[in-house]
């Protein structure tokens, strides 16, 4: 089992969309993928054809002591999805304090699922520092920061590096921090300049660059990933390329059992 934590320092960068599409892309590239929603917005499963009225999820299951397996759904593309679940404020706080007090919680629960050695877990987190992000980063083998090619995102870089340093770097099974540039539109000069600067700064650590594409938005309206909605569009190719470079990065190490 290899854990990929998707996070961002600021909201509105399309992090959940990236998590969903990247999970589908990894699955299409032949990996077994579990997409795990650690964001109280509980929006991830909507990208996988989930029912908006559905309330089951890992938060409820954890608090109730139920098996996670019953909380999940299977997307038409074959991705196993664990929604966050719909909870009231009190339960959410209880769940968050549970996460706070049990640092090993995520790994234990995932271990209970008996996933295979090469199976991938993609974890979505809410934007900015939170106990969810902390939980995800503490367990992650690979951290993926989602950014827009704009000045605001660029300004958050030090903060993200910092978070990763705090939670991930000391561990031997942590591969590193990768970046995904989302909604890239190179016909705009600023976007291009920021991409250029980031490429100069990070080079190979940019594992994906996803074009701005109307089909990505439309896909969500149809409760689908863009890969299913418009297999020929550029964003689909970008997600597949991103999945390949992540898979490539992950082959370079064996997770500790």
């Amino acid at each position, binding site marked *: 089992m290899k854990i990929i934590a998707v996070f961002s320092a600021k909201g509105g960068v399309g992090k959940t969309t990236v998590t969903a599409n990247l999970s589908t892309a990894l699955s299409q590239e032949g990996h077994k993928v579990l997409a795990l929603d650690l964001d109280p917005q509980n929006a991830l499963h909507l990208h996988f054809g989930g029912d908006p009225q559905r309330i089951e999820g890992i938060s409820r299951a954890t608090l109730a002591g139920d098996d996670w397996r019953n909380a999940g759904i299977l997307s038409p593309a074959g991705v196993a999805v664990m929604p966050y679940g719909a909870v009231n404020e009190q339960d959410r706080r209880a769940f968050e304090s549970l996460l706070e007090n049990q640092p090993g919680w995520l790994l234990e629960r995932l271990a209970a699922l008996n996933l295979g050695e090469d199976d991938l877990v993609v974890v979505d987190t809410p934007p900015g520092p939170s106990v969810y992000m902390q939980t995800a980063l503490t367990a992650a083998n690979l951290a993926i920061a989602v950014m827009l090619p704009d000045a605001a995102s660029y300004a958050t870089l030090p903060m993200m590096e910092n978070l990763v340093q705090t939670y991930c770097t000391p561990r031997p099974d942590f591969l590193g921090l990768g970046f995904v540039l989302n909604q890239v539109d*190179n*016909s705009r000069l600023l976007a*291009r300049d920021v*991409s250029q600067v980031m*490429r100069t700064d990070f080079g190979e650590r*940019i594992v994906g*660059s996803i*074009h*701005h*594409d*109307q*089909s990505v938005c*439309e896909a969500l309206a149809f409760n689908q990933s863009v890969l299913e909605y*418009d297999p*020929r*569009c*550029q*964003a*689909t*190719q970008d997600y597949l390329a991103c999945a390949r470079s992540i898979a490539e990065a992950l082959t370079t190490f064996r997770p500790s059992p």
Partner: protein
Amino acid sequence: MTDAPQPPRKTLSETLDRWSDRVTQWRVWRHPVARLAIVILGALLFALAVTVPLELEQQLVFAAVCFALALILNTATGRLATLAMIVLSVTASLRYMYWRLTSTLGFEDLIDAFFGFGLVAAEIYALLVLLLGYFQTAWPLGRKPAPMPDDPSTWPTVDIFIPTYNEPLDVVRQTVYSAVGMDWPVDKFKVFVLDDGRRPEFKAFCEEVGVGYITRDNNAHAKAGNINHALTLTDGEYVAIFDCDHIPTRSFLQICMGWFLRDPKLAMLQTPHYFFSPDPFEKNLNTFQVVPNEGELFYGLVQDGNDLWNATFFCGSCAMIRRAPLLEVGGVAVETVTEDAHTALKMNRKGYNTAYLAIPQAAGLATESLSGHVGQRIRWARGMAQICRVDNPLLGPGLTLGQRLCYLNAMMHFFYGLPRLVFLTAPLAYLLLNAHVFQATAFLIAAYALPHLCHASVTNSRMQGRFRHSFWNEVYESVLAWYILRPTLYAFINPRAGKFNVTAKGGITEEGFFDWDMARPYIVLLALNLLGAVVGIGKLFFMESPDVSTLLINLAWTGYNIIMTGAAVAVANETRQVRRSPRVGMRMPATLRFASGKTLACETIDFSQTGIGLRVPADVEIPMDEPMHVSLYRGQEEGVFPVAAAFRRGDHLGLQFQPLNVQQEVELAQLTFARADNWASVWGQRQRDSLPRAFASVLRISLKGFTDLARGLVRLVTPSRRARAVSSTLHTRD
């Protein structure tokens, strides 16, 4: 040089390698006396092999054994086998020539002597060119680019010159955009358009793009004078020169500069001239990118061979020159019309080095029509003849023997006009005039001449196979022989006269036509050879006791000449060419973005200066009337360009670029024409030579020549329907 035909037989190659390694490492070679001794011994044995008289049967056995040895060697890879084959070939050829000069020249009457000595003179010329060619290309240097220092702030300054005279702005534009996008520190290179046409629209364009624009108040010494004038107004340490229709790649400066930094005596580095549009041979014979074209032998092999001897010469474009030595020889030479080669010669004489890098770093438009192509070759031939007279490389100071011989061959090469015409008519002397040009029996001739010819073809096919297919040399020479004969002789006699032709490029051939004016000499040669064949066959059947073997030899020769002249005729049949900006095939990823914001990932088929072709799934709907954007990539780099759909045929979508600003133009150039790997990836990758296949293709082209000729004749005799229709409408208007 990967110079053996595949599949290589490893064992033999390995044995040869081991052998040569062991022998060359013998300690005895360190001793000068031993070296001298082995040279003398070798020379004596060689002289013996060349001169020893043999009976017919003995000569046959000797020739068969030598040729069998050559064929066995030809199965091995590596340079030792090539060198050994050259030795065998030289032996066979010199043995033939020795026999020819000592045993076949006892002519009995004046006509025999006239044709006989004429033929032997042509043969001596051909032999000399063969030997010089072996010398020149036996060991191509295969120079690789030298790396640049890591810190770009230490890189030197360069001026890029783009001389132009009468070429249209559309042609020059692309070259300028590509030159501007060169991967080099922006404060360390400047681009200058040197406009001898003094055209206001060029000036306006240069100002818009922000490149230098240089003119002068006269056109003295044409291109050479133009460059020399610009040298007085600029100050970069280096000068890179591109003809205005040679589009450089963005990597040119980085690829070329390394050697200048490594070798302070290096004055000039030349790269190949690569053409992305077909020349008239390729266009009219439909051999583009299948058969290596006329220039590929020179840039693929000859210049690389010259490089070993430090005798690479400047070819006027796609080259970098160090300013100081160039100024030291007085700038670009103006005494001859091939100022480029002459300039290199002068710098070599001053002790400077010249170098060649066989990596195409620019691409250009080939001359459109046969007459234009011939005009250009005439200029080269005339210029070389001039150099031969005014600054003969065999004489004068400062050159090594190797340099002298390489330059000599470059010059000698252009005197092929007369010898080629002699070979194309030689059998007629016997068939039509009954002249005995060989005072020997047919069997003896075969026993000596065939080894000479067979060794030369097998060896040359091995050495040149990637860059010149067998028999094509004869095709190219047959087409050009008549035309370069007079200019070379004239320039040789009076080297000071001669004017510079500028070849027209970027035009269109509205309609296919048969160029009767150009074809006239080939038609005469063809008719004469056909007549010779008819007479010869007539003699064979109707003459009392004919000399069958001599007749057969001459008939075979005439048959070969008929094939070659037929192929030359085919070249004169100009095919229709409608595209003003030729397309370059290239598969690379692309993205199409529609007005709706949706996208389509696809790949390119080809590009041109004005548009791009994409392969799109046949079932995808494309809104043909909406504006779109196309993205092109180079690694992580992406350029986005506005386009409009031009046509759709199944999975082929044609797009036209909308007006771009200067920055977009430069970027588009960097992602298309100026891509570093564009031309290098196809360089020398044509189908390898094989003697039978090459002969079959020449034969096919020759047959096409006959049909073209027949059709042209029919059209000439019966006025075409269209012409009639036109004249009739004119009548009704009256």
